[in-house]
C-alpha cells in the first residue's frame, strides 16, 4: 500500500502502451495516449504529496496545519494536462481527416506509407 499511487500511475502507463500495440483503430490509439498521459499526470502529482499536508493555498487555510503539499509538481501537471489536450485535439483532427480520405480508421488498412 505504501507506494500505491506510483504503482498505479505506472500501471496506467502500461495499460496505455498495451492499447497502443494491440488495438488498430486510430481513435483507440488516441485513447491509449490519453491513458498514458493520465498515468504520467498522476505520477507527477503524487510525487509532491506530503503526509498530512494541506493544499498550497493560504486563503482560508486551516490555522493549525503543519505542512503544505509541494506546489511545483502541481504546476508542472497543469502544463502537462493542457499539452495533453492539445495533442489529443490534433490527433483527432488527423484521424478525422484520414477518415475523410480513406473511409476507414483501421490502422492495418492505412498503410500507404510503407517500404
Amino acid at each position, binding site marked *: 500500500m505504501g507506494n500505491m499511487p506510483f504503482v498505479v500511475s505506472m500501471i496506467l502507463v502500461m495499460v496505455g502502451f498495451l492499447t497502443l500495440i494491440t488495438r488498430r483503430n486510430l481513435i483507440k490509439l488516441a485513447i491509449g495516449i490519453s491513458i498514458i498521459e493520465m498515468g504520467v499526470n498522476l505520477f507527477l502529482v503524487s510525487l509532491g504529496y506530503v503526509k498530512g499536508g*494541506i*493544499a498550497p*493555498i493560504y*486563503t*482560508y*487555510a*486551516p490555522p493549525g496545519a503543519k505542512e503544505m503539499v509541494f506546489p511545483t509538481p502541481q504546476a508542472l501537471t497543469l502544463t502537462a494536462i493542457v499539452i495533453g489536450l492539445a495533442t489529443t485535439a490534433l490527433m483527432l483532427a488527423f484521424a478525422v481527416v484520414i477518415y475523410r480520405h480513406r473511409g476507414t480508421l483501421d490502422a492495418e488498412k492505412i498503410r500507404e506509407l510503407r517500404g
Partner: protein
Amino acid sequence: MIAEFGFLVAAAVLVGYVFVSMGRLMAGPTTPDRAVALDTINTLVVATMVLLGTAFGQVVLVDVAIVYALLSFIATLYIARYLEGGLR
C-alpha cells in the same frame, strides 16, 4: 463541533458506491446503460468532493465540486446527443 471524521466516513461510503456503479459501467449491455452509470458516478463524486472539502477543513476545495457539477452535465449531453443521432 468536530464532525470532520463523520464527513470523511460518509465520503468513503460514497466512494464505495462508485464501485457498484462501475460494475454497471462494465456490464451494461447497451451504451445508454453505461452513460447512466457515468451520470451516477458524477453525482456521487460531486457529493464526495463537497464532503471531503469539509472534512479537510479547506473551504477553497469546494470550488472543484461546483466545476464538476457544471461540467459533467456537458459530457452527458454530448453522449445523449450522440445517441439520438445528432452532431453530424
